[in-house]
């Protein structure tokens, strides 16, 4: 079969083939964007511009409220660590990144506390199972922050003090309310009533335990 040349019809009017009107239109579009963004940026009105760049270290986009991030250890009313060294979290942790060495407490009211509590953020897979497993609201991942970059691997292992430095007092009752909790919380709504908006990031049981 002989090689034929297929002549493709080029559509478009003479005006289109002149290019110039379309070029002027295109230049107008880009120039409009340039002027708008330039003036807005020069006068400090970034919100009036179309610029979508986020100047990262200075400007950060907030993580969503349910974001699982860097761990923290919550505190009791007296400022001590809330953790009772029950070993639930290192047991459930699929990455084996939690190391707890328990020790006996002095007062004996709560038997154990962690002597050593370390989390290797490089091993952590951010699954959130530790926070799910914790029976006493001691470990949380709600810092809305991510693990910081470090120069040495050992710097990524967070110790107890560092984890506690981000901690707050939990509003959950240490040790639970007890056997007769139904009577103690009588009159309190146990579940959010219809129409009550519970903040997405609120810890479990906020509504039930807030007056106790």
């Amino acid at each position, binding site marked *: 079969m002989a090689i034929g040349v297929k002549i493709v019809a080029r559509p478009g009017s003479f005006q289109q083939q002149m290019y110039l009107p379309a070029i002027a239109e295109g*230049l107008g579009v*880009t120039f409009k*964007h*340039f002027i708008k*963004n330039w003036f807005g*940026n020069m006068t400090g009105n970034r919100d009036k511009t179309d*610029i*979508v*760049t986020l100047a990262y270290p200075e400007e950060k986009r907030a993580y969503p409220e349910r974001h699982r991030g860097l761990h923290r250890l919550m505190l009791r009313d007296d400022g001590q660590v809330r953790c009772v060294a029950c070993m639930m979290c290192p047991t459930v942790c699929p990455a084996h990144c939690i190391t707890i060495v328990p020790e006996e407490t002095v007062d004996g009211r709560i038997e154990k506390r962690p002597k050593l509590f370390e989390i290797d953020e490089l091993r952590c897979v951010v699954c959130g199972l530790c926070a799910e497993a914790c029976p006493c609201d001691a470990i949380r991942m709600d810092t809305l922050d991510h693990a910081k970059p470090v120069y040495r691997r050992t710097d990524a292992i967070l110790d107890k003090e560092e984890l506690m430095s981000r901690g707050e007092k939990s509003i959950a009752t240490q040790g639970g309310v007890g056997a007769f909790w139904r009577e103690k919380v009588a009159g309190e709504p146990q579940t959010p009533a219809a129409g009550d908006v519970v903040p997405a990031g609120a810890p479990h049981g906020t509504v039930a335990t807030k007056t106790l």
Partner: protein
Amino acid sequence: MDEFLASFTYGHAGFTAVSALIKIVFLMLALGPGIASILTWLERRQSAMMQDRLGPNRANIGPFKGWGIFHFLADALKFMFKEDFVPPRAHKFLFALAPVLALAPALIVAAIIPFGAPLCWGQVFEKVPLGACQQPVDLQIAHMDVGVLFYFAISSLSVYGATLAGWASYNKWALMGGMRASSQMMSYEVTMGMAVLAMFLLFGTLEPGAMVAQQGPWPWQWGIWGIPHFVSFVLFLTAAIAETKRTPFDIPEGEPEIIGYFVEYSGLRFGMFFLGEFIEIVFSSGLMVSIFLGGWHVPGEVWLALHLPNIAIVGMTFGFWLVKVFMFCSFQLLIRWSLPRFRSDQLMQLGWQRLLPVSIANVLFTAGWILYSSSK
């Protein structure tokens, strides 16, 4: 000895040589590369603003950020510290020569561009009406009657830089880039010459200084107004962008497919190609400002010259010229970041089948018009 010193007074060889040397150092070594360096930053910043981004704004000297204008210094520093790689089978001498051949013509064409009103030697602090100067020192390196033809002659030499770079690299892609560069630049020089031919007929001179002198200070007295003038302007601008090998005519560089004739270049050698391209933009803008946009003329300069010392007038005209050139460079960047690129065959089609007939028709029309209006 006295004779030697006397040769440095106005009108003698020594004075001419020294003043020319100062102008060369100022325009070719300081101003041209200076603006070109800033353009490398401006290109990135302006394109960012056009595309709803922020662009490079970080480089700083201590607390001075200046919207990131120091990025060009950082770029230069980076070029200096990069490895200077030469491909093992490259032609060593031509490989080294090519960047010089690309950069040098871009600088040399500055010789014909007038960049300010004449300085009145001996009366710099006096009020001198325009044109009444006894000892003028022109702010233009060379008065050549061939003028714009000199620009063509020199700027067409830069095709050797591109072609040799492509050939000496011993790289297929570079060679293709070099071939494309030579075919493109030769095609568009024809159009460029024809565009200037029409302006030559209209001005009656090829000397940019004389062209500027024929234009007036006010924007409506510039050389761009009129049908043949404007057609010439569009043709010249198109051809000039093609000569600088930038989008929409970046076929020789062809970043998406072949990297172009400088694919094997790194470090300062690549920097010379890069800077040469921007210097070409600056001085082609300078030439177009001289021919079409009134050169160094400042609105109201006749009145100002009667009330301000000569040195202030010279400074103002130079500043106004600089602003015009800078705006025009910025306009070229706008074009570069707005238009999609041509295909290689479309480029040839545009050059030979569209622009060349239009430019020839423009020349004929201009000639007929001048004949008609002079016979009346």
